[in-house]
Every structure is written in structure tokens, then in C-alpha cells.
């Protein structure tokens, strides 16, 4: 029976188009948790058997039409995959110590560092700067090695939460592919040099430059919020007045010298125009927390989010109303909104009408959620905004040109939001006030032969400069090029000198957050593993001719800032900021200018004359949610993290709407040729419900050729992951542009999507259990606060479909039900707050030594993540809503897995935990079979065994020593972070006190920027988790099976605009 015909009433949820159509691809994962477990040695082409099946190709870059995906063999497959087996964590060798008399040594320190207790975790405050804005962190170190990163609750950009990038920084720190050596280009290939040799070269070279006033000397830097770096650059430019300083960020998260800040917590209505406030924004972690607070129903009120965007973002997925329009229509929409607001006369906007006329499909996009058409949507939204003057926010994303930002500023001003919920501030910092030169100027100067020496501080412009700015060619015309970077990447390989850069966890620096510029110190958690140096040290060498004491440099800046803001400069003040990670006196207030002093937004260059390609398609370039602009391409945790929206791992794709795909004759997963401005790229198509029609979104950051063994390295014969779309990008239209042509190729490409994996089989249950309630539940604010119909509706569903009286009668257990006298651990997940960003998934991976398995394994459903985020669509495929739901082990009280294990390898603890005993497990996989939630993961291979390779020794340091590393043939699953529970229990008992509520936080809970996860003791009457579980919105997933799940979900509350809902009803009638 198709899921479409299911008799269940109410909303229909579907994981993917494949499920909706009940396609064989979905059935494959529904019917067997590991569909290819029995045939692990065949390639997909062999499996399909018939010659008429579409052929698979290995990589998108080199399409030949019939290259099979490499064979899934046990031990001798792809070199990348083989290497990936290392990317988890391992004590595999040490685990063999069961054989006694292996002599093991205890190596004590000569002098124990102050405050160090062997084996006890220490925490250290630092900050991570990403593309010019920082987030404050607490790094957990064990015996001097960082193993886990958490958010710093004192830091305003973190508030204790993190994102996936910061969680994954640990793996980057220990990446064996990070650059180890100084290289110098020479005839016959680059040669390894030492830092001394570089200093020997640099001293006279820069002395000569100083003499000439820096003529022909250019610096190209990546964006950084470091005040110390800014001061050093300023000094350098003072001493070398003719030198030029350029800055380039390919995927800027902010635009221009203006920064806008919002108070989402105080906002009743939030409108995002192509603005991914909760996902890609530099302050996303804070905004997620504020937004989630606004989702709490307080006195019958909660915030309402409207999102207008071209492709699904986590913000769009959280929206109450979402309108999918092309990115280039946003300007017209904003203008229409301004007119509607300023004229106080909500009406038809010519801008939108025009847009509709030129793109007929846009008109047909009306859906329940967009209220019928963009016009009605706009009218209802404008009315809603006007009804909440001073309590609303209109945001526009950095992709949109300057005039749209000005329009939105006018809207916010007209709504009286300025200084209420919206603030604008000039970017602080001496570096930013005098804007750096763009990369175009550098290329022009280089091509004119005016550049003698180029110093590149971070960044990878050879890879990520737009296609019309041939950076590599310009580089060849420069006498001396020096590149400082963490990896020996595409740019390094073309430079005269490559210098290994220290990781942010290895070096002293400082950073400021978005937008206020709260000042934090970046302090090293470990000595440089690869003898790297920071940008501060290099700049200092150029200035002074000798290596500096970086700590002193940073401290000097700290003292300068302290003098400005009136803070202390004493040793104690210094220790305080090192301890707290944030300066108590924020300089932000000082730097905040008056509205009248703000410069107008810098107008972006008008898009060049469009080449008529006979196509009306639009291309939108997006920074990737996992590899960002490509800098995290060698990070296995991020590569294997399913994209929050597409659930895609190990690839990027051209994202098309179902209607556009149909019009173009493109099938899902088919390779398509994208032609744009003379450039061409072939990448797989991904049909995404909710994508704007005639708009194609592509993710930047893939197709790296010198990233490393994970992300792709042509030198080592490792194929790139995904396809590089920078070569389609033009400096005239960095973010979106029309004129794209898409041609299907008829070649099928295997996309490793996890959306259908571990599908919970409600379809098959129908015959025997109509009573199975919805896995995911949603209600609306009016229902929630009114008659409580939200839950009543579900009960009605159960009643209707089963014919029994609802709620379902209490079932008797087949088993003796245990009593829990001590602790009773439980979890509650607030679906209203979860935005589906994926930070928890990476946090879980880092905390629990979960291996990375590689694309080939993900394709057959063998990813090892203990925590997955299910994504459901609901509504019309042309314009659906998304609901996300994190699912991990539910620690059922009547756990079905325990009942079938013949070896007692999974047993119940006295505190209600479903313990997994790896040593007893022989891998029958009965438990996984019997788990209704599909949360058990099996180690089909020893994903850790290649730690025996000495080159990968350093990766072992990333492991959490408190968690066993699992080997082949063993089942594993979420433990509720039992190591954290035990640590807290022991600490509390040692001090003779009870465990406080909130003292134990699971890794996912701690990482969650929105605070959606609550964990605690259900036997503690005061605990937050008990309160949550007693909410009338609380429900257990598949509770009807009488397995008594310990994890409870809180029904998601949406807050739709009643006007738009009424419109829907009327239209349906």
C-alpha cells in the first residue's frame, strides 16, 4: 500500500519524494535496515544485473558513462575509504592487552604542571574565528590534549551552544594531512625547508622592502576579527606606506562595513528575506537560542517566523510560513514589502507581479503555507508586521545586493524597530574602518606586473577565487609569493614559500564576536603539533625581524583595549579574561555609532550584461553547511554529517525543484551539465521539494584537489569529494545570477543520502497496528492554547483508524516491570526548538569515538552516527513544510533489543539505561532487527584498525579516553553519554552531595544551540526533564508498542498566521 493512500488522518509526513511515491529505493531501506548486508562484495552495477539499468559513475568530475563505483570489498577497497577507517578513534591495539605480561609503562611527569591531575579533564576558554567573527569556546583537555569542544556559556555568541564547525575543530587539529613543513618552490619540485631557512630569507627580503617603502608588496588576508592582527597590519602599512592590503572571503557571512544585529527573543514577528539567521549567519548560534526562547508558549504567545528564500535552509525549515521565490526576486519582494509597510496600505506589488509574469511557475507555487500566492503572503505578512511595530524584525541575507539592505533598513525604520529589536553598527576594529582592497585589485596589479612580493595569510584563493579572476595565472606573474595555511593546499602548491599555520587550538591570538565585537582571547590548548606558526607571528617577524612572544603580543592588545574601555591591565585581569574567555567590559558599546553616522551600504557591482543563453534558470551559490567554503573539506566528521536539509553526505549537488526537474527532464541523482557564462560543471541533480522553481542552488567548497586524504588530493590519487562550482562563479555575480542552462546527461550518479536510512516502518505495521500514532507530531498555537485540540486531534486519529476508544488502553507487559528506586535517567526533546542544524550529531561523534565510514558505506546505509536527525516533509511537494526530529536510542524500559539478545550483551541497568556491553556482543544483530526506532549501529568492519599506521598515530589523540573504541562485529548505540553520568555520580558522591538537576548534560544537549534537549533524573521531582515529560505536549514515539521509551518528544507548536490559514481553507473549498 502506498503511503499516499494511508488512511491516517491529519497531516501527512514523508521523509523524501521516494517515500511519498513508495519508490523501490525507499522500500530497500524500509524492508531491511542494512539492505546490502548479505551482499557486501558486489558493486551496485553488478547488483542491478540488467544492462538497461542506468550506469553508475565514480566521480562527477570524470564522466565516462560506465565507470562502476568501486567494489565494496572488505579490506582492499578505495584508498580513501581504507584511510577513512582510521578516522574514528582507536585503542584497538591496546585492546589486545588481554594477553597478560605485555609490559606497560607508567610515565610520570618530572614536574606536574600546576592544577593538572592525571586523567582529569581540564577546561580552557578560547575562541574560534570563522570568516571574521568569533564564537567563544571551552575546550576540554585530558592530560594536555584537547578532546572536545563546548560552547562558552559566558560568551554572547555562544551562550553555551556550538555549531557543527566548532564541534569538528578537534578532528582538524589532529588531522595528519595538516601541513607539517615549510616548503620552498625549486626547480624539480618543492623542497622541504625549515623555519630558520625561511627567517633567513625573510629578514633581508623584508628589510629591502622596508627601505623601498613597500612598493610592490601586497598582502592578501582572509577575514579575521583579531585586533592584534589588525594592529600589526596597521603597523606594517605605516612602515611600508606603499604596500597594499587585500582581503578575500569567498563565502562571506556578512556584508560590507555594516553589521546588523537583532534581538530575536524580543521579536514577535520575524521575517527573513533570503537570510539564514539560524544556520549560516555569523551569530546563528546565539540567534538559535533567542529564537528557541521565543518559541516557548508564554501566556498564549510565541513568535512567528516568515521566511522568503530560494532554497531550503534551517531557518526556512523552522518557519511558520515560507515562500519559495528565486533569489533575484527577493529585491522586488522587499521593495513591495516596503511599499506595503510605508504606505500602510497592503496591496498588490508590481514587483511581484512582474516576477510572476516572467516565471509562470512562481504563481503556481501557492501552497497552504504561502497562503496561496506571494501577493497574499506578502499582504498577510505586512499586516502582521504592522500589528507588531517595534516588536518585529525584518532581516535580509548577505547574498542580496546593497540596495535591498537599504530597503530592509527602511522597512525596519518604518516599523519602529531600530534600537528596539534591530541595531546597526559599523564593524569595529582598526582594520575594518579603512576598508581593505578587494582581490580584483590584486589580480589587476599582478597582471600589470606591479606585484613583487605577495604574502597570503590563510585562505585558498587559487581554489576559491571566482572563475573570471584567474588567480593561479596572476600568481605566476609575481616574483615572490608566501602562503601561510593549515594545509598544503591548491594555493600553497603554486607559491614560492608555503608556511604551515598553527591551528587555533595551538596558538595565541584574539578575536571578536559578531556584531558587537566582544573581545576574547584565543589561547593555545596544546603546543603546535606540526610546528606551525600563526599569522601574528609571521607579521611580527616581518616587522621586527625576529620571532615574537605571541602571548606578549596578545597581552599588549588586551592592555590597549582595557585602557580604552577602562578595564584593568593587571595580571589578575589577564588571568580573569583567560579564565572567563570574554572581557567583562565589552568595547562594543564604545564603538557603536549613531544611526546618522552610518555610511550607506556599499553598493555591490551591478550584475554584468547577462549572456543570453536561452535559459531562464537562476544559479545560487551557497556556502556549504558542512565544509563551509571548502576549508573543512578534509574533515571526515563534517563530510559525513548529513546536510541539514538535503541529508546528503560526501557530495554536493545541483538542487532543483520537482517542477523544474520535470520541465528539464531530470531525474533525481542524474548527472546534469550546468552551463553558465561560458563555464561548465557536471554535478548530480537533487530534487528538493520546496526549492524555488527555475532556481538552482549549488554548494561551494567541494571538488578540492589538494585538500588531503579525505577531501581529495590529486597528488595522492584521491578523487575529490563533490564538484567544484567556484569555476562557475563570476566576480560580477558572486551569489546568484540568471542565465544558467541545465542539461541532463542520462548518467546516474550515486548520491549518499541518509534521508531514507533507518526508516521506521509504519507502513508495514498498518495491518496489525492501526494504532501506531504519528512519529512526529505538530500542533498550532491556537490549538495548543485554545482547547488543547493539538493532542486531541492525535487521539482522534488513533480512534478513527483503529476503531477503538482513545487513548489506547494501558497494555499489560509480557515482562516483569522493574522499579527504579535511585536515579531514573530520561530525556525530553522539544521539537518546537530543534532547528535540525546537526551540531548534536557531530558532538555525539566527537564525544563517543564514533568512526567515519566513507561514502561507499553510507550508500548502503552503514553510517555509524548514534544520533540521527529525521527530516519529514509535509504538504504539497511543490511547497512543503519541513519538520525535523532527532532520534537516538530511547532507552526503552521494556526494551525489545534486550529481549532478543542471546548473549545478554544489551541489558537494563538499575537506573533504566539500556547498557550495551561490547565484550559480550558477538554481532547477531538480532537487537537491531527488533529495535522499532532503528537506532542501533553495527560495526561491519574494524573502522579503527589503520591506526596501526604510524602516520595516523596523531589521530588517536582525538579520542575520548572515557569511551571504549569498538571493533568489528560489535553493535553500538547511544548510551545517554553514560561516561558523563558516571563522572557526575562519582564527583557528587565524593563530595557527599546529591546530583543537581542539570549537572549531567549529554553531548548532544550541551552542543545544541537552541537548547532543545533536556536530560535528567525522572525520579527527581524538581527536574527540568520531568517537567518537560509532564507537559501535555509530551509523547513517546511508538509508545503504543508498550516499549516505554525514556526519551519523550514535545509536540512541535507552529504559529501560523490565521489569515493565511483561512485563505488556505477558502482556496481548498
Amino acid at each position: 500500500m502506498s503511503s499516499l493512500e494511508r488512511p491516517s488522518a491529519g497531516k501527512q509526513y514523508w521523509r523524501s519524494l521516494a517515500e511519498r511515491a513508495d519508490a523501490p529505493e525507499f522500500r530497500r531501506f524500509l524492508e531491511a535496515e542494512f539492505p546490502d548486508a548479505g551482499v557486501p562484495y558486489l558493486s551496485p552495477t553488478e547488483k542491478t544485473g540488467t544492462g538497461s539499468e542506468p550506469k553508475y559513475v565514480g566521480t562527477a568530475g570524470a564522466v565516462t558513462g560506465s565507470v562502476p563505483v568501486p567494489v565494496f570489498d572488505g579490506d582492499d577497497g578505495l584508498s580513501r575509504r581504507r584511510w577513512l577507517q582510521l578516522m574514528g578513534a582507536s585503542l584497538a591495539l591496546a585492546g589486545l592487552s588481554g594477553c597478560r605480561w605485555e609490559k606497560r609503562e607508567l610515565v610520570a611527569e618530572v614536574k606536574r604542571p600546576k592544577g593538572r591531575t592525571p586523567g582529569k579533564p581540564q577546561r580552557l576558554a578560547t575562541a574560534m574565528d570563522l570568516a571574521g567573527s568569533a564564537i567563544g569556546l571551552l575546550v576540554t583537555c585530558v592530560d594536555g590534549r584537547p578532546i572536545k569542544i563546548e560552547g562558552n556559556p559566558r560568551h554572547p555568541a555562544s551562550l553555551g551552544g556550538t555549531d557543527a564547525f566548532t564541534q569538528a575543530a578537534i578532528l582538524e587539529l589532529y588531522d595528519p594531512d595538516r601541513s607539517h613543513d615549510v616548503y620552498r618552490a625549486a626547480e624539480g619540485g618543492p623542497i622541504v625547508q625549515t623555519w630558520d631557512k625561511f627567517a633567513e630569507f625573510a629578514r633581508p627580503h623584508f628589510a629591502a622592502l622596508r627601505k623601498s617603502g613597500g612598493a610592490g608588496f601586497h598582502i592578501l588576508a582572509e577575514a579575521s576579527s583579531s585586533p592584534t592582527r589588525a594592529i600589526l597590519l596597521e603597523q606594517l602599512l605605516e612602515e611600508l606606506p606603499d604596500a597594499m592590503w587585500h582581503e578575500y572571503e569567498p563565502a562571506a557571512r556578512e556584508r560590507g562595513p555594516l553589521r546588523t544585529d537583532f534581538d530575536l527573543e524580543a521579536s514577535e514577528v520575524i521575517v527573513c528575506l533570503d537570510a539564514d539567521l539560524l544556520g549560516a549567519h555569523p551569530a546563528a548560534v546565539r540567534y538559535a537560542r533567542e529564537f528557541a526562547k521565543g518559541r516557548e508558549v508564554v501566556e498564549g504567545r510565541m513568535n512567528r517566523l516568515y521566511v522568503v528564500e530560494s532554497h531550503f535552509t534551517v531557518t526556512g525549515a523552522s518557519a511558520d510560513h515560507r515562500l519559495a521565490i528565486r533569489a533575484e526576486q527577493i529585491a522586488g519582494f522587499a521593495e513591495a514589502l516596503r511599499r506595503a509597510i510605508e504606505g500602510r496600505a497592503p496591496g498588490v506589488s508590481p514587483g511581484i507581479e512582474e516576477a510572476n509574469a516572467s516565471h509562470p511557475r512562481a504563481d503556481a507555487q501557492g501552497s497552504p503555507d504561502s497562503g496561496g500566492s506571494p501577493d497574499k503572503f506578502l499582504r498577510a505578512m505586512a499586516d502582521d508586521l504592522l500589528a507588531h511595530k517595534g516588536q518585529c524584525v525584518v532581516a535580509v541575507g548577505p547574498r542580496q545586493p546593497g540596495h535591498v539592505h537599504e530597503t530592509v533598513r527602511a522597512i525596519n525604520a518604518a516599523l519602529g524597530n531600530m534600537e528596539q529589536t534591530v541595531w546597526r553598527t559599523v564593524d569595529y576594529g582598526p582594520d575594518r574602518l579603512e576598508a581593505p582592497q578587494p582581490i580584483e585589485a590584486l589580480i589587476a596589479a599582478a597582471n600589470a606586473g606591479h606585484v613583487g612580493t605577495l604574502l597570503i595569510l590563510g585562505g585558498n584563493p587559487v581554489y576559491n577565487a571566482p572563475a573570471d579572476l584567474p588567480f593561479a595565472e596572476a600568481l605566476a606573474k609575481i616574483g615572490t609569493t608566501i602562503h601561510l595555511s593549515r594545509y598544503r593546499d591548491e594555493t600553497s602548491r603554486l607559491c614560492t614559500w608555503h608556511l604551515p599555520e598553527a591551528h587555533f587550538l595551538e596558538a595565541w591570538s584574539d578575536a571578536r564576536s559578531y556584531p558587537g565585537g566582544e573581545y576574547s582571547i584565543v589561547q593555545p590548548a596544546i603546543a603546535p603539533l606540526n610546528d606551525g606558526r600563526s599569522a601574528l607571528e609571521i607579521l611580527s617577524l616581518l616587522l621586527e625581524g625576529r620571532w615574537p612572544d605571541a602571548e606578549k603580543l596578545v597581552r599588549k592588545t588586551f592592555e590597549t583595549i582595557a585602557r580604552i574601555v577602562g578595564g584593568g591591565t593587571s595580571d589578575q585581569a589577564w588571568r580573569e579574561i583567560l579564565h572567563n574567555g570574554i572581557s567583562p567590559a565589552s568595547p562594543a558599546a564604545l564603538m557603536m555609532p549613531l544611526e546618522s553616522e552610518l555610511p550607506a551600504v556599499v553598493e555591490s557591482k551591478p550584475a554584468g550584461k547577462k549572456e543570453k543563453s536561452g535559459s531562464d534558470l537562476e544559479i545560487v551559490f551557497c556556502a556549504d553547511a558542512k565544509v563551509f567554503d571548502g576549508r573543512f573539506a578534509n574533515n571526515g566528521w563534517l563530510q559525513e554529517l548529513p546536510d541539514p536539509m538535503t541529508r546528503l553526505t560526501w557530495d554536493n549537488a545541483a538542487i532543483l525543484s520537482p517542477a523544474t526537474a520535470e520541465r528539464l527532464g531530470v531525474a533525481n541523482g542524474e548527472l546534469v551539465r550546468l552551463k553558465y557564462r561560458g563555464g561548465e560543471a557536471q554535478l548530480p541533480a537533487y530534487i528538493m521539494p520546496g526549492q524555488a522553481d527555475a532556481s538552482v542552488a549549488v554548494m561551494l567548497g567541494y571538488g578540492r584537489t589538494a585538500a588531503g586524504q579525505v577531501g581529495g588530493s590529486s597528488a595522492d590519487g584521491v578523487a575529490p569529494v563533490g564538484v567544484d562550482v567556484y569555476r562557475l562563479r563570476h566576480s560580477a555575480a558572486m551569489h546568484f545570477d540568471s542565465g544558467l542552462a541545465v542539461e541532463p546527461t542520462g548518467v546516474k550518479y550515486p548520491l549518499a543520502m541518509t534521508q531514507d536510512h533507518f526508516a521506521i516502518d509504519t507502513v508495514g505495521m498498518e495491518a496489525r497496528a492501526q494504532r501506531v500514532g504519528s512519529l512526529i507530531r505538530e500542533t498550532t498555537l491556537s490549538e495548543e492554547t485554545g482547547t488543547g485540540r493539538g493532542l486531541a486531534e492525535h487521539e482522534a486519529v488513533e480512534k478513527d483508524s483503529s476503531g477503538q476508544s482513545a487513548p489506547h488502553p494501558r497494555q499489560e507487559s509480557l515482562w516483569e516491570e522493574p522499579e527504579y528506586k535511585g536515579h531514573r535517567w530520561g530525556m525530553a526533546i522539544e521539537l518546537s526548538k530543534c532547528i535540525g542544524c546537526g551540531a548534536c550529531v557531530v558532538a555525539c561523534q566527537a564525544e563517543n569515538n564514533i568512526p567515519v565510514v566513507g561514502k561507499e558505506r553510507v550508500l548502503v546505509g552503514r553510517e555509524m552516527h548514534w544520533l540521527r536527525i529525521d527530516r519529514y516533509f509535509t504538504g504539497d511537494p511543490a511547497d512543503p513544510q519541513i519538520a525535523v526530529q532527532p532520534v537516538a536510542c530511547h532507552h526503552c524500559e521494556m526494551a525489545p533489543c534486550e529481549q532478543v539478545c542471546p548473549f545478554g550483551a544489551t541489558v537494563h541497568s538499575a537506573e533504566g539505561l539500556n547498557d550495551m556491553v561490547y565484550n559480550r556482543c558477538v554481532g547477531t544483530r538480532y537487537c537491531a532487527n527488533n529495535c522499532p526506532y532503528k537506532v542501533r549501529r553495527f560495526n561491519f568492519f574494524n573502522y579503527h584498525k589503520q591506526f596501526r599506521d604510524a602516520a595516523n598515530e596523531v589521530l588517536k589523540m582525538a579520542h575520548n579516553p572515557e569511551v571504549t573504541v569498538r571493533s568489528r562485529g560489535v553493535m553500538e548505540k547511544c548510551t545517554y553519554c553514560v561516561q558523563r553520568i558516571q563522572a557526575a555520580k562519582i564527583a557528587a558522591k565524593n563530595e557527599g552531595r546529591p546530583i543537581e538537576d542539570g549537572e549531567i548534560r549529554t553531548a548532544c544537549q550541551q552542543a545544541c544551540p537552541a537548547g532543545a534537549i533536556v536530560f535528567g533524573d525522572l525520579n527527581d521531582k524538581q527536574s527540568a526533564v520531568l517537567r518537560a515529560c509532564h507537559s501535555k505536549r509530551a509523547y513517546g514515539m511508538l509508545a503504543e508498542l508498550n516499549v516505554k521509551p525514556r526519551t519523550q518528544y514535545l509536540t512541535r507548536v507552529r504559529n501560523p498566521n490565521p489569515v493565511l490559514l483561512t485563505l488556505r481553507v477558502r482556496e481548498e473549498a
Partner: protein
Amino acid sequence: MSGKSNLMADPIFPKWIDRLRPLAGVLLAVVPLYLVGMAYYAGSPETTDVGYSPVQPIAYSHALHVGEMGMDCRFCHTTVESAAFAAIPPTETCMTCHKNVAAESDKLPLLRASWADEKPIHWVKVHDLPDYVYFDHSAHVTRGIGCVSCHGRIDRMEQVAQVERLSMGWCLECHRNPEQHLRPQEFVTAMDWKPIEPQEVLGKRLREKNNINPSTDCSTCHR
């Protein structure tokens, strides 16, 4: 005459073999038992682990320092009450005394070298639990389990040896019946402490007083 009757007349085995048949039966039953028993015994912690006493790089004598001079365990193993590891002391700890005491001893060149060159000493681990076991010293010491319960009379050992099995069964014996080993907190490090009342009575009282209910869940020690 047929061949059959020939065979009947000349059996392959002599008659007396029949008398050995019960013996063969017994052997068949006993030999596997014996082999399995031997393998079990040879591989048991009782045989393999108890008595392990590796030679240390420096002939540090607990008998001298603890037994004769009466130093407390916690003088060197400072973290035992607060951390999972009862950490091996850094060279610095030794040097607090040995800068002056036996400073020129010919038994301590390695110690002096370690101090001078800032090179750590490589001690050999005696009590070594498998890596999948997460034992925490602080949880036991602060609850009144004496050092001697697991480590034996360290104060009599010239060279430290393992005296207990440290097997899972051995751990569980105490986790199920902690009364046998509980003692007042202040005597935790005392090597020769004996209760004045019967251990069972004292243990029961201490258990109730301090609410000691050791868990036997798998996840208590295995994570």
C-alpha cells in the same frame, strides 16, 4: 572354510584388551575435562596475574618508605581521593626528600638524571586493568575501601607485586557484599588496621551510614 570364520577365529585385538575398555571410557571422559581445566586454570587471573612483580627501573621499596618510615600512601599518590588514577608521583615528589636524603645514593642515579635532564622515569605498570574497564580510585577510597583490600600489604613489599586477581568476578564479589571491606574513612590508607568489632557488623553499619550501594550494572565499569 570361509574367510568369515577365519576372522572369527583370529580376532585383531587380543582378548585381554577387553579388560581395558572401562579404562578407555574413563580416559575419554577425563582427558577433555583435564585439558579444559588446565587451560582454564592456566589462563585464569589467579595464575597469570597474581604474583606479577616486574622489576622497576629504580628499586623503590615500599617496605622501606611505607613499612619502616610510615609514610602515608597519599604523600606520593596525591590524586587518589579526587581522581580516577592514583597517579604515579612526578620526579619532583621524590626530589623533595632526595635532594637531601640519600642524595648521593648509588641506587638513585636514574632519579637524579631524570631530575637534571627533565626526562620522565618509565615505571612498569603492575596493576593493569583492561582498557574497557573504567576503574575510579576516588570512588572507592572516599567510600572507605582501604588500599590494602586490593593492593595487599604494600608496606611489606620490597618490589610491588599483584596479590589479588583483579578479575571481574573478584570485583563483583565486593560490589555485591561491600561489608567485607568497608572501613572508617580515616583508616583507608592504614596497612595494618584491624577492626575491633567483627568486620561484618562494622561493614553493615558503615554501609548504612554512608549509603553505600555499589552498582553491578555493566555500565558502571564498561562504557
